[in-house]
């Protein structure tokens, strides 16, 4: 009898190329996702050292971080240079690149799963912290720095110290009006943005099993906001059904062979974790952040908290600073805070289900005067599907702008950004100071909540607006 293992341990152990005396591991990397912003320096490094890309077949490149989401818009020179540099590097090193007008292009963490490039049991990396998204498939997926991108390109491996494991069991049924976004925000509220530091989190329990793949990706995506290295969900029939028939997923005999392997991946009974957290979501209310860190989050039915109630002195300072930056007052109701902008998109909430949720709320309503609302599909394929379903028309008739795929206002590297002082209800993942534009103010919410804010002009409890 072997010791019971967790999903994380199974993946880790099956990727060991070498273990050094001090316990540091050389891990094999199955899949490498790349984009324009974190690749110029690594390719330059390869060129200088006369090295090549070890497995171009295990690498794909997209253009997402700074491409305009309005194709008529002129792109700035620096961004253009990064894009051209990636084109040149991909051609020189033999890596497949999805061009801007290719329907397969889009946000790196949306297209990996969509293409079936993301598979259970694999190790996936990308020079972007939200690589954790792919953990929804039972893949160990984490963001790496630029030097590590070069390391992976050259060697298809990475040097890593073992992580600790943590299981978050989510019980209860998600109430109507609450989505995977509210679930993960509630988890972060509970454990804090450093709650997962040094850990790989496995999400388990009935509320996670009940989620669609889109929902699981939203949850896994924000794992990094809880400080953890990666998030994982055990692969099951929902996972297999999503993957079957995807362009890069295995076919025929190989598919069956793969599925039988994937079925061995879930954690064994009796496997132990370094840390366990149990959360019941049956009583949660739609969540909205009020501060400049994702843990500064509260139910829409509550008030902006008073820094005097903060648990520690450090927290008191950071709450005070956050409330000040956000232009709020302690004690004011969250519902009713007026917004200037609404952003629906990003690798957290830019998938078809998210756009459906927004359209459901927008249908037959109008974006409030003075509010500018944009919807940015996560990929060309999401965009096409939404158009087939008529969602784009519902949204544009309501006064939303319907854009082309990209990271857009999640990172605000192009003109999709807030002006100083503007307040935004955003479905993205970070509300840091300046994240959506210098002096911009971000409230993280679900797609339905974002749409509700757009049509009412203020943060609103969407539960009162659903059919």
């Amino acid at each position: 009898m072997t010791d019971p293992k967790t999903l994380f341990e199974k993946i880790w152990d099956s990727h060991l190329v070498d273990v050094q005396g001090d316990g540091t591991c050389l891990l094999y990397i199955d899949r490498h996702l790349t984009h324009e912003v974190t690749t110029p320096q690594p390719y330059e490094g390869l060129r200088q050292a006369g090295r090549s890309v070890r497995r171009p077949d295990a690498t794909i490149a997209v253009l997402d971080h700074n491409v305009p989401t309005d194709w008529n818009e002129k792109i700035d020179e620096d961004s253009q240079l990064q894009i051209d540099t990636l084109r040149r590097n991909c051609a020189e090193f033999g890596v497949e690149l999805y061009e801007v007008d290719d329907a397969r292009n889009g946000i790196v963490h949306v297209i990996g799963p969509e293409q079936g490039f993301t598979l259970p049991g694999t190790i996936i990396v990308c020079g972007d912290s939200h690589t954790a998204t792919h953990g929804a498939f039972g893949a160990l997926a984490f963001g790496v720095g630029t030097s590590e991108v070069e390391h992976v390109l050259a060697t298809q491996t990475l040097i890593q110290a073992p992580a600790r494991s943590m299981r978050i069991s989510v019980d209860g049924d998600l109430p109507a009006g609450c989505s995977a976004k509210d679930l993960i925000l509630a988890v972060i509220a509970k454990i804090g943005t450093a709650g997962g530091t040094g850990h790989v989190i496995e999400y388990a329990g009935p509320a996670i099993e009940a989620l669609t793949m889109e929902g699981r990706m939203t949850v896994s995506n924000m794992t990094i906001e809880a400080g953890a290295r990666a998030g994982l969900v055990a692969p099951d029939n929902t996972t297999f059904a999503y993957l079957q028939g995807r362009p890069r997923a295995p076919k025929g005999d190989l598919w069956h062979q793969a599925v039988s392997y994937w079925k061995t991946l879930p954690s064994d009974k009796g496997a132990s974790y370094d840390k366990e957290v149990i959360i019941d979501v049956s009583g949660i209310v739609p969540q909205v952040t009020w501060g400049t860190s994702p843990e500064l989050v509260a139910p829409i039915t509550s008030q902006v908290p008073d820094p005097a109630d903060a648990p520690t002195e450090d927290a008191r300072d950071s709450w005070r600073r956050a409330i000040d930056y956000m232009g709020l007052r302690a004690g004011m109701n969250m519902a009713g805070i007026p917004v200037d902008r609404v952003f629906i998109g990003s690798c957290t909430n830019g998938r078809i289900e998210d756009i459906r949720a927004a359209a459901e709320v927008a249908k037959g309503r109008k974006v409030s005067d003075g509010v500018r609302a944009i919807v940015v599909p996560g990929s060309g394929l999401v965009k096409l599907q939404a158009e087939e379903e008529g969602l784009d028309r519902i949204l544009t008739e309501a006064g939303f702008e319907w854009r082309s795929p990209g990271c857009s206002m999640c990172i605000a590297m192009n003109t999709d950004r807030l002006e100083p002082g503007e307040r935004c209800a955003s479905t993205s993942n970070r509300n840091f100071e300046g994240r959506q534009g210098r002096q911009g103010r971000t409230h993280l919410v679900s797609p339905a909540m974002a749409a509700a804010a757009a049509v009412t002009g203020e943060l609103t409890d969407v539960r009162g607006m659903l059919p």
Partner: protein
Amino acid sequence: MENFTRLTAIAAPMDRINIDTDMIIPKQYLRTIKRTGLGSVVFDELRFNVDGTEKSEFVLNQEPYRRSGIIVAGDNFGCGSSREHAPWALLDFGIRCIISTSFADIFYNNCFKNGILPVTVKSDQLKALMADASDRENPELTVDLNIETIIRPNGGRVAFKIDEFRRKCLLEGLDDIGLTLQKQRKIDSFESKQRVNQPWLYLENESN
């Protein structure tokens, strides 16, 4: 990569928690294709007004901290995005060492790849070092990686621990990729085994 053995430098106190990578280097500077030149904009929004003038209250705009080589900061330093531009910008400014009670994982990793030493200390130790750094008359700390010790201005010592492999690479300024490529044979044999056990992971098989 420049090696790190022993550093004596001015330490800048940054007494706040969760200093994230957007604060260290805002995204408009990620549109570079180089690693150098970011020191002039490190901590951009904390350091400069919209019109480009300096914010006098920010520590790196004050004497003697303009010449800092060390930062002493609150908990969870470097959280947020994976951008390696953050350590590049710090390094380009002249920061070779950061001391905090905890670091975000990716940032911590990135430091070692760029010859920066991140040192984790306990919270009472951080308090003492923060006080040392805040003393404008004598804010110099010495950080010795050989003996894994910080030497305070009053001669007091704070021990720290860095894992062995990272310590060795930093002490000798070793390039990770070169080291890994020496293990080429192990990588080859891993791949041939995986190709047999999980053939669906190899594209030439997937397309048939």
